[in-house]
């Protein structure tokens, strides 16, 4: 059973109606072609209207949609020869993060990304895409290897956040994330980060320092979940919708704030409509970014990275 999102109920209902009419036409000798075509036109207008005016909370729902493509979905479409590698060499293998090497248009790349599951069983194995320190350390190991072999790094961001657990704290969740931020800041190879679903706070950022930060149109990136913000600010997690609107968490908000470089358009109805077609849209942006970054010298790359982050933030100066 596919989950229906609240805001797209009218679309789903109209689609069901059309399917019903089509079935009726084929099962009987009554021809409803004209009616169907009218409804199909109406459907198109309705979809344009609904998907063209998504509210922040609608996008939160879209970003969390269980069917939404994951890192490995896109890896399968965008790259060839992908090999996944496991383990941080210290504690274990965190399947909430995947890491490996592959070819992108005949060139070698390193891939890291958060990985959630698509069903309960896989989600349990992958801890719902919420990493422990060993996940960040695995990713770091591969990113440092990317630098050694001069491969660009492509990072897919898709997590509710780093896992808030006892063992995670004991093993240094803070240190693991902090370490990645500083190390990624200095890697002498291009780093391209793409937020594909939820970009949840420090847990997202732990794979998120790079030369380009792109976001899928309906993904979100925030300092705290809307529910968490609502609970803290208004002592009421039911105000999540209000928080989603106040906190500026959509791709459009982040573009405006100068945090995101490019918004990658999504298919009408969301990325999950077609992994293949959505991958093509990612491909266009990824290819262009890589070309730009690979034309830079190492010094330029590192200096530009500092310039990029230096200007993020807004403040005033007293006289």
């Amino acid at each position, binding site marked *: 059973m596919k989950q229906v999102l609240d805001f797209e109920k009218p679309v789903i209902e109209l689609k069901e109606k059309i399917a019903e009419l089509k079935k009726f036409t084929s099962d009987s000798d009554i021809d409803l072609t004209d009616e169907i075509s009218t409804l199909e036109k109406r459907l198109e207008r309705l979809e344009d209207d609904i998907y063209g005016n998504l509210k922040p909370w609608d996008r939160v729902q879209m970003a969390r949609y269980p069917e939404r493509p994951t890192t490995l979905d896109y890896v399968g479409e965008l790259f060839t020869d992908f090999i996944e590698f496991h383990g941080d060499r210290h504690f274990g293998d965190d399947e909430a993060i995947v890491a490996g090497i592959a070819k992108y248009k005949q060139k070698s790349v390193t891939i890291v990304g958060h990985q959630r599951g698509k069903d309960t069983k896989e989600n349990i194995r992958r801890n719902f895409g919420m990493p422990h320190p060993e996940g960040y350390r695995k990713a770091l190991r591969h990113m440092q290897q990317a630098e050694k072999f001069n491969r660009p790094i492509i990072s897919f961001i898709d997590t509710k956040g780093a896992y808030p657990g006892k063992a995670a704290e004991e093993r240094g969740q803070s240190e693991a994330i902090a370490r990645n931020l500083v190390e990624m800041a200095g890697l002498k190879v291009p780093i391209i980060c793409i937020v594909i679903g939820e970009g949840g706070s420090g847990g997202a950022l732990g794979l998120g320092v790079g030369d380009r930060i792109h976001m899928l149109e309906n993904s979100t990136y925030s300092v705290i979940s809307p529910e968490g913000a609502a609970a803290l600010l208004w002592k009421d997690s039911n105000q999540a919708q209000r928080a989603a609107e106040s906190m500026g968490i959509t791709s459009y908000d982040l573009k405006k704030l100068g945090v995101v470089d490019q918004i990658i358009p999504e298919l009408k109805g969301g990325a999950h409509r077609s992994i293949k077609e959505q991958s093509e849209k990612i491909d266009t942006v990824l290819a262009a970014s890589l070309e730009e970054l690979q034309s830079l010298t190492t010094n330029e790359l590192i200096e530009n990275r500092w310039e990029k982050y230096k200007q993020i*933030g807004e403040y005033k100066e007293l006289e």
Partner: protein
Amino acid sequence: MLKDFFSKKKKYASVPRKEAKQDIPEGLMQKCLGCQKIFYRKEMKKNLHVCPHCEHHHPLNAGERIDSLFDEGSFQEWDQQLVSANPLHFPDYEEKLEKDRNKSGLNEAVVTGKGEINGFETAFAVMDSRFRMGSMGSVVGEKIARAIERAKESSLPFIVFTASGGARMQEGILSLMQMSKTSVAIQRFRESGGLMISVMTHPTTGGVSASFASVGDYNFAEPGALIGFAGRRIIEQTIREDLPDDFQTAEFLLQHGQLDKVIPRSEMKHVLTTILDIHQPRGDRP
């Protein structure tokens, strides 16, 4: 066990709290948050807000911290003029900032600058939890990044005293991105051979814990400081079990290999001096 608890309580109940309140002018006395005993405020202040009885470390504000470490007259503040904007037009944010400015006498949750510790010049940042819980917004990130850059340019060490509840939520993603900004600055500083010392004080959590607080060449903490990534309540809800009392304390982190050393406030200046001394002259990379 239970008996101990009661006898303990009784012992402290005998402290003349009521009389103290009645006979002594308001503000002259102060109750220790650790042992609940009452002390003269001046005595506590002279002891750097460490309880003479149980050694509980009460928070120091930025000014007190600076006074406790730097040689007289050596302190020079940087970027005091930076104040928060309200980039997301977040309701009530400006009022809250104004309130904390008045309360703390500070423009923001961090004071940066340079000074000398027993003659060793160093750049530093001291956070103050009285200002928006020491949360990191654009100004905190900018001031820390600038301080690190200046330390790099002047070949000074950089010492940060953290005290922060984490991100400044009212600045949304810009707050999160200060973690990146300060990290890039630290990376550049590190690349230039700079010495960075982090001292985590109560509390150091969330985004500050998961960025500059945890990446010093030496990571220290004050006794009893709460340090962690996620909040205790959220963890308890997530894993559905009670956490040990000492969870996320400095001592807990030390035991789990997450800190180099827990340093009592009374020894702080001495230990920092020794470290600064051992790192002289600075080994600049060619």
